[in-house]
């Protein structure tokens, strides 16, 4: 499987681990799964990109849609663990300054209000 999405509950925060490749082929299915996970409107969402190997602009659109969805319902979203080419893509696209990015999960969890 080129993309795997799993969730964990962390003291009121919904942590979503995205593993594999978030590209043209996997992005539409990923968006569907992620929006399903957000049903019930959790106020705090942590997107863990540490296991993500690859993200294209189609994948960025998925992350953007999720961020807008969380904000629209008054929630807070933080992104953690981006590394290598994934981090580079976030920086080139300007997402790094607009999304709340953290190097590790503990920092991100501590930053939730």
């Amino acid at each position, binding site marked *: 499987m080129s993309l795997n999405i799993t969730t964990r509950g962390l003291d009121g925060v919904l942590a979503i681990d995205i593993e594999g490749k978030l590209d043209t*082929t996997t992005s539409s299915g990923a968006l569907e799964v992620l929006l399903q996970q957000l049903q019930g409107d959790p106020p705090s969402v942590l997107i863990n990109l540490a296991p993500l190997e690859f993200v294209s602009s189609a994948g960025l659109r998925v992350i953007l849609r999720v961020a807008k969805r969380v904000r629209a319902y008054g929630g807070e979203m933080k992104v953690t663990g981006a590394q290598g080419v994934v981090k580079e*893509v976030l920086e080139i696209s300007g997402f790094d300054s607009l999304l709340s990015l953290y190097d590790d999960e503990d920092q991100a969890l501590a930053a939730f209000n």
Partner: protein
Amino acid sequence: MHIEIANALEEVATVVGTLEVFCDNASLEKSTAQAAELALDELLTNIISYGYVDDSRHKIVIDLEIDSHALTLLVSDDGIAFNPFEHELPCCEQSVEQLEPGGHGIRLVKTLMDQCAYQRLEGKNIVTLQKRLSQPVTRR
């Protein structure tokens, strides 16, 4: 390596997978391979999504070349004339709400690859992307 695909989005993953194996066989650095894979994904997705005004089947040709200095990707299609590198790129959004989903693909290609060239020749768009190699190629 010469590859021909139809203008269908499901072909993109196959070609990118082929490039991944090609880079792996040449023992390219992971960062070089990933940059090229991303650029090819973006370019093909753009061509297939926006390059045709009919519903006919079209052929897209991809050539992968490697020498001691660079990895080169040549992509040729018979879609509408379009130079992806001459258009202004979105930038400077101030918030997530302002951040638009489009336009980031070509910015990624231009930033991650060392050379991007376009020409229109005999009714075809021909894009050449090149990534310099930071270490010599050792073929397996």
